[in-house]
């Protein structure tokens, strides 16, 4: 299958491993992810005041690209846009809902972008987890060459995948989609009560200790329940939970480091797709010691 794919800015830089692992997984599953031509920043975070329209122009412009791809034959009859980053997913989806519910606003935005064709409102935003679920986690299980028995993973959702209710990919209070993925890969799912508490998001700019306190709560609750690694889907959550472990250790010297993985990294690893696909070099807390300890990786590596 072919599907238009929106990477978002960070997947090309700090979170490059998110993209490489995804592309490798997609290839292994016979999916062709066609990167959206001339995409622009999604404009995260979704602007919330009633009167603001200018901040919705950026996300809508990306949706027009999907229309164009369908019209010029790059893709046939596929009006879904695949996203990976939770924040891109949330922003694009909320913007889509906003213009669909307010035709007058859509017209204003279309008029402003007079050089672009009009957005017609037909695009659907889909997250890679939803696509994997659609494909069937059982099918995924068949392709696992490296079953992760004994690895204890705590799925973390953060806020953007589950809230507000109109954009949620799963039940906002009891999400299970990542857990189902983890089980299909053979690993053990550790549910924690903090799996949907916000990581602090953009507060990391000028309030890093507030963020690291939240990260400490999230990570230590997972560890208490036996989790060995965290699984997530957002470069900002990854930064706040992974990179900010430095700040956690400043306040909690006995804190035990914990690897933080993009879910596609874990899938790629379970499918045995190779080092290039995993991209572990970009993770702040190196996952390799854990994986070696569990005998999933050979010591020489």
């Amino acid at each position, binding site marked *: 299958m072919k599907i238009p794919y929106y990477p978002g800015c960070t997947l090309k830089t700090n979170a490059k491993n998110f993209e490489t692992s995804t592309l490798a997984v997609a290839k292994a599953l016979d999916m062709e992810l066609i990167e959206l031509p001339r995409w622009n920043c999604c404009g995260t975070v979704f602007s919330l005041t009633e009167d603001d329209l200018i901040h919705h122009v950026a996300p809508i412009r990306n949706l027009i690209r999907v229309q164009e791809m369908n019209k010029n034959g790059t893709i046939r009859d596929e009006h879904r846009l695949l996203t990976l980053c939770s924040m891109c997913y949330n922003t694009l989806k909320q913007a889509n809902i906003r213009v669909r519910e307010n035709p007058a606003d859509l017209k204003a935005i279309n008029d402003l972008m007079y050089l672009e064709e009009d957005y017609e409102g037909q695009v659907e935003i889909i997250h890679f987890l939803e696509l994997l679920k659609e494909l069937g986690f059982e099918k995924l299980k068949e392709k696992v060459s490296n079953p992760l028995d004994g690895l204890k993973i705590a799925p973390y959702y953060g806020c953007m995948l589950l809230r507000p209710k109109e954009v949620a990919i799963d*039940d906002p*209070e*009891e999400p299970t989609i990542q857990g189902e993925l983890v089980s299909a890969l053979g690993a053990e799912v550790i549910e924690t*009560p903090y799996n949907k508490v916000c990581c602090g998001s953009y507060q990391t700019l000028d309030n890093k200790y507030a963020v690291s306190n939240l990260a400490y709560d999230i990570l230590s609750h997972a560890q*208490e*329940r036996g989790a060995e690694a965290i699984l997530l889907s957002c470069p900002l959550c990854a930064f706040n939970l992974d990179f900010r472990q430095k700040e956690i250790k400043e306040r909690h010297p006995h804190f035990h480091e914990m690897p933080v993985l993009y879910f596609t990294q874990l899938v790629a690893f379970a499918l045995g797709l190779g080092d290039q696909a995993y991209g572990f070099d970009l993770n702040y807390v190196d996952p390799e010691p854990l994986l070696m300890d569990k005998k999933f990786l050979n010591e020489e590596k």
Partner: protein
Amino acid sequence: MMNEKESSHQDNRIGVYVCHCGGNISDVVDVKRLAEFAGRQEGVVLSKDNTHMCSDVGQQLIIDDIAEHHLDKVVIAACSPQFQGETFMTTLATGGLSPYVVEMANVREQCAWPHFDSPEKATEKAEQLIRATIAKVRLSEPLERKTMPIGKRVLVIGAGIAGIQAALDLGDSGFEVYLVEKNPSIGGHMAQLSRTFPTEDCSACILSPKMADVRTNPNVHLSTYSEIKAVEGYLGNFKVTVEKKPRYVDIDKCIACGICEEKCPVKNVPDQFEEGLTTHTAIYTPFDFAVPNKNLIDPEACLRLTRGGKVCGLCAKSCPEDAIDFNDQPEKVEFTVDTIIVATGFDIFDASEKKVYGYGKFDNVITALEMERVIVHATEGNPIRDLGKRIGFIQCVGSRDEQVNREYCSRVCCMYATKLASLLKHSGPQRDLYIFYTDLRAFGKGYEEYYKRAQNMGVKFIRGRVAEAIENSDSKKVTLKVEDTLSRQIIEAEFDTVVLSVGMGLSKSSEKIVEILRIARSQDGFLKEAHPKFKPVDTNREGVFLAGTAQGPKDIPDTVAQASAASARAIRLMNQGEYAIEPIVAFVHKELCNGCELCVPACPQNAISISSNKAQVNEALCLGCGSCISSCPRGAHDLHLYTNSQLLEQIQAALEDKKENEIRILLFADDTCTYRLADSVGTAKMPYTTESIIIRVPSGSRVTPALMLHALKFGADGIFIGDCEERSSPFPHSGRVMKENVEKVKAILQQENIEPERVRSRQFVTVMLGGFVNSINELADFAQAAGSIPQEKREKLGKNKNKELFGEKYD
């Protein structure tokens, strides 16, 4: 102001009264102008305005005028006929006239109230309504009320405290009561409680004597473990079908000795009465003070009943009375009653829906009802749960919460939490108790004092709604996160036990009863009373009453009061041995009938038969729906109080002053649902287009295609017909007939190049306020956009066909 003149229309001397309604009407419409306008109408000899027509003074005015001015018909422009119609009918009867020559123009609920922001248009519309009502009343017949016999038999559905109280009141008054309860014992939820607030009476102790009285009262026929399957008929003649579920134990032989329970090998059946906290054997008694106190077998747990053959059967072998019967079958019982009381109670909110509190996942989170059972067992020296030291109560679980679609307050939870906390503190003074509330509702007699006593005992009340509960994976204690809104601090405290103060909802079994009885539900889901202030225990169906929590959350004193009230209302209908009915019955214009028999199958009550080649209507069976009228190709069928001529005159009068480029739509509202719904919309002051006139009909099926075409011909730009949903309609066929009629008219419009979307119908529930407003506004918008129907097209409608039906003068 008064207008008096000689009537030019010799047959009528109509008096018109325009009510100010204490400002409710006069604040919006110009009542003086209306009175003047009415005075100029043909047949009107007298026209006045007055502040309160329904008051003694107002009514006396009418009575005096009837005598002094020899009035023979009366029009009152005031509130809805659903509201004060009865009052004025009585006034006329007192004044010596037939109660059926008074008509009300609904200028309050269906004019001044919804159109509060357009006084000028509202006044114009009121004029149209008055003109239409006068047109109708000119042709009113001086009919008399009919009476039907009624006996002294009552069906009480549900034997919780409400049903028990009603049954006893009625039984003691000499009425025959059929008390049907779906559970194997009577008593309901009250039997499960430990103590009751504010007196802390032992619930079982005060309930038991009542339960025993039910058993011994000679007028009460109790049927437990039974379900209502069907109810057909009407007031004075309800045919009830009940299915008694098989107990597999003969209750006449069983002495509840308990030997079978000792022998039964299946010991793990969750005990429903104990909210699943303990188990019982497959053969069991419901609880220790059950009435009847007899055993029964759970067919899904019993080895013999699930596996068949000669498996087990130990109970039968050991029973000294030989009471076990594995071949027991459901038993169908049929009987007839005159009135019905619905007392089917509540279910508690399913706390697992509120996922943030962890019910069903965390060991130490329980509901208040479970806590009641825990306390009962602890008091009996038989503890089933260790509660620990620190206990927290979370209020408003499943109440006042849009996230779980329960916006209402469940009324009793503040008090029952206070009670549970008091009991726990009393029996364990070392306990540390917290109640987390948003508002504390201690509204009843002795309630505020009880709350203060709880505070005196050391129960802490913290104002904050708990956001989430987190379980400590080792200790299983539960941490609650809540903002103490009074000190603006976040509390994170660990509790040994957390109690969820769950709200009330309509019981599942009530939902089935709603379908069977065709009664309405309120917006909050509970059963709907006929009027929130003045008819709190009546329903929209005559002869069917409500009592207890099925009507809405309430405590025991209010439940008992309501049960007695419902009994009194039922007695009121039955006591005289007869009751009055409206003479809304079908009749036949014999001169038009040619005996074609098309009408016979059209009547859902089989009330039409052919005699001497002419159709005739059995008035006792006729429901007055008007469905037969559409079936007659010659217009021979008609309906008293809503005759073809009357409706035509109303329609014409409602459209008379319409200018060519104006838009006006007619809404035909069925009396049972749509008319009441329109009243509710007005009462809620929800605005909708003023370019609409509502005409009352007994059912949607009354509006024949001929009437619709006439309306369009005379100037209507859109027609909307409203009827009940099948399940709450007193007329089973009317929805279907209405839709068929609308399709016929649409087809004709299509042929004549008129937009068929101008004619619409919808089946309403009395709670669909927004739906009603949208329906009218959408049709008006459509008509506005499509424009007024051109006169040439209007002329084409109603040619030929209608001349046959209604005679020359309507062409």
